[in-house]
């Protein structure tokens, strides 16, 4: 590899700063999945078992979504160093984000400045392409969102970026193919979607580079064998317990959603009773409806709305008032795409392949478009944008006979404005407008409960808005072995496919927390959302009257009440 320039090092320093600054506090709150990775890592570190007592599992049962294990494994050393905190949980993703930023530098260099000698812009401008791509990823809203939260895909992207890089390098130096194999295997252990995307990506790369790979077929076979050996334990785990595969599918897959069934029923009804059923099934059938739905969901990931305007509307992946990438990126991406099509080269096809395959896994879920599941798009989009910027600078400088640095400065100002807007939306608007989406307030809630609970025999907690047990475990650093002895697990999944913990220790978690039907006792502490626990006097149907004493209110940063902690006094 070439020696990195000072500019590159500065960009990396910026990337590090943006990813670790106030990592404890932004995003505001600790999302339930983050708490689950953290606590399971803690449990593995302390006892060698996950929260369910399974020794070093290859999938984590967690909320019944059977999370891939890599993020949890990587969190263990972080927790060992920094204790069980938000910072420790998010640090692996932050570091993976930085490694991805470094990766895109070398990937861009390999594609455009390596032996391929794809000098679209001439040597003068080409030299800056990797640094610009690196800078764009460093300040990318989409990439920052997942670098600053423990959401699996940040680490997945790291593995896939370096996997692709090593693959391309292997075309010149065979040994890199083994590293590529290890990286792709790592991705499969990191995120569900990789189980679909990696095989497709590898198949596509083999198709594109079949002639080059045939020349090194021995190395290809051995590296493929290495990859297979590495993923074999996961395959055995899935075969041993198919629920590890289908459990997650039930929570998100379109095949478990009733939407298509409803459309089919409507179509057959509109056919009328006299329409031949066989012909009706020919025109309106599940295969076609599902195919169309998958294609529709796939296309949503390339919409201007998803990319530039609104982003992902599903919590917690939306950044208020903006899309996943800057609006200013739009013309540069289109220019970059134009250049890639025009200068059609095999290596450029490789990252386009990544762009096209990234949304595939997401298209099979009913929550689309999905910022997290299509996260792999960010690499190709960033490279395209960098290409477009370089092309713009060169073309405008040559066309208007002005110094290219002036053009570059103008573009730099545009990005600075966009980046400033992002910083405002992320650090200021997010805590004010959507704190509940990041499960804000649980830390303070657990602290307040801990102060009060000593005076009560029981603590009844509303199960609404995320599994409350996990925050109690996390913030109390609850002993995993004691937890396993007292936990009451409800293994019957809810309508979304998630399983619930009914109770552990003195804590009971009530689904459908309804004040009028909940058992009232004066020796119980009640924890619920603002609208779930009334103030003042309350009369039971039996005639008993209680005074609801609000011990604490946990407030969102915008001043609204999130939770109430209360107990009862009988009158």
């Amino acid at each position, binding site marked *: 590899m070439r020696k990195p320039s000072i500019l590159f090092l500065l960009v990396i320093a910026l990337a590090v700063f943006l990813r670790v600054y106030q990592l404890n506090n932004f995003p505001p709150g600790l999302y339930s999945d983050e708490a689950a990775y953290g606590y399971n890592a803690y449990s593995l570190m302390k006892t060698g078992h996950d929260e369910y007592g399974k020794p070093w599992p290859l999938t984590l049962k967690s909320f019944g979504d059977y999370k891939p294990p890599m993020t949890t494994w990587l969190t263990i050393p972080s927790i060992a160093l920094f204790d069980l905190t938000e910072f420790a949980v998010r640090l692996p993703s932050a570091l993976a984000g930085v490694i991805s930023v470094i990766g895109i530098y070398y990937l861009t260099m390999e594609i455009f400045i390596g032996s391929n000698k794809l000098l679209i812009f001439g040597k003068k401008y080409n030299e800056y392409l990797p640094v610009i791509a690196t800078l764009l990823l460093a300040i990318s809203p989409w990439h920052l969102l997942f670098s600053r939260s423990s959401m699996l895909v940040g680490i997945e992207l790291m593995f896939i970026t370096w996997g692709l890089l090593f693959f391309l390098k292997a075309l010149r130096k065979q040994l890199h193919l083994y590293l590529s194999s290890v990286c792709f295997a790592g991705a499969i252990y990191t995120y569900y979607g990789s189980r679909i995307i990696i095989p497709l990506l590898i198949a596509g790369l083999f198709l594109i580079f079949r002639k080059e790979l045939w020349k090194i077929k021995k190395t290809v076979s051995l590296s493929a064998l290495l990859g297979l050996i590495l993923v074999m334990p996961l395959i055995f785990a899935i075969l041993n317990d198919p629920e590890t595969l289908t459990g997650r599918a039930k929570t998100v897959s379109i095949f478990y959603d009733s939407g298509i069934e409803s*459309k089919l029923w409507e*179509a057959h009804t*509109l*056919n*009328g009773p006299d*329409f031949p059923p066989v012909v009706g099934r020919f*025109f*309106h059938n599940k295969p*076609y409806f599902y195919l*169309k739905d998958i*294609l*529709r969901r796939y*296309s*949503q990931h*390339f*919409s*201007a*709305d998803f990319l*530039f*305007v*609104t982003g992902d*509307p599903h919590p917690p992946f939306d950044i208020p008032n903006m899309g996943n990438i800057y609006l200013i990126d739009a013309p540069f991406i289109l220019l970059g795409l*134009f250049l890639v*099509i*025009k200068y*059609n080269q095999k290596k450029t096809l490789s990252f386009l392949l990544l762009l096209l395959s990234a949304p595939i896994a997401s298209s099979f879920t009913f929550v689309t478009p999905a910022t997290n599941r299509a996260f792999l798009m960010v690499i190709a989009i960033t490279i395209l944008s960098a290409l477009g910027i370089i092309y713009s600078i060169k073309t405008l400088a040559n066309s208007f006979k002005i110094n290219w640095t002036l053009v570059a400065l103008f573009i730099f100002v545009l990005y600075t404005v966009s980046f400033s807007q992002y910083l405002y939306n992320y650090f200021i608007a997010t805590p004010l407008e959507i704190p509940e989406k990041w499960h804000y307030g649980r830390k303070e809630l657990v602290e307040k409960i801990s102060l009060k609970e000593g005076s009560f025999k029981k603590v009844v907690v509303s199960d609404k808005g995320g599994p409350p047990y996990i925050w109690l475990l996390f913030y109390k650093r609850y002993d995993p072995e004691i937890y396993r002895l007292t936990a009451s697990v409800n293994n019957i999944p809810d309508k979304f496919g998630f399983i619930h913990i009914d109770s552990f220790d003195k804590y009971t978690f009530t689904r459908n927390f309804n004040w009028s039907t909940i058992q009232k006792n004066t020796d119980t502490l009640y924890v619920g959302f603002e609208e779930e626990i009334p103030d003042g006097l309350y009369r039971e149907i039996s005639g008993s009257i209680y005074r609801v004493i609000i011990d604490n209110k946990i407030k969102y940063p915008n001043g609204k009440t999130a939770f109430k902690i209360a107990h009862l006094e009988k009158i």
Partner: protein
Amino acid sequence: MILAILLTILSFLLVSALQKPKYIYLLQFLLLLATPWLIILILGRPSLNTPISDKITCNQTSSNISCLTSFEFIFFQADTRNHSGIKDFGLFLPSFISAFLIGLWITITSKNKRYHFVVLLLIIGLGLTALMSKDGGLLSVLWLVVPISVLATLGFHKMLSLLLSKRTGLPIKSFVLMNFGLLVYETARLYQIIIFHKPFS
């Protein structure tokens, strides 16, 4: 009806300026029969000034600009209010997507400046759709139908050439056949829905 005829003529004129073979007119004609937007204009007779002020098929927080110019709106799920669309159909059938992309590829990589004009027309169409999206109505999206029709025709023409060529590999021929098969199926389905579900009544 007048608008339908006008747009159809425009499509034919553009295609004839780009491609020589006479059978391309037949291809264009057949493809136009398979486009929901033409059927909507002829049979639905929508009001051209109906505002699309609600968030119709895209997610609730989307803007009209990005909604009206999205793949989802154009190929999967257009506006269905006031006879402006057919439920679960876009302005074009989903099987047009690959042809449209191939047509786009052909025009971008072509050295013939006439092809670039189509791309320019598409960009202008997107711009006009965006400008008119606030006032809404079917008129705001009709700027796109001519360039997309032409690009799709070029794409299907290329696919047909690949299918008939002896040098084309089996995987590509299979893909092309599947695409044409899907086109025929979707067209049949479109007419079944028009005849039996009566979306314009």
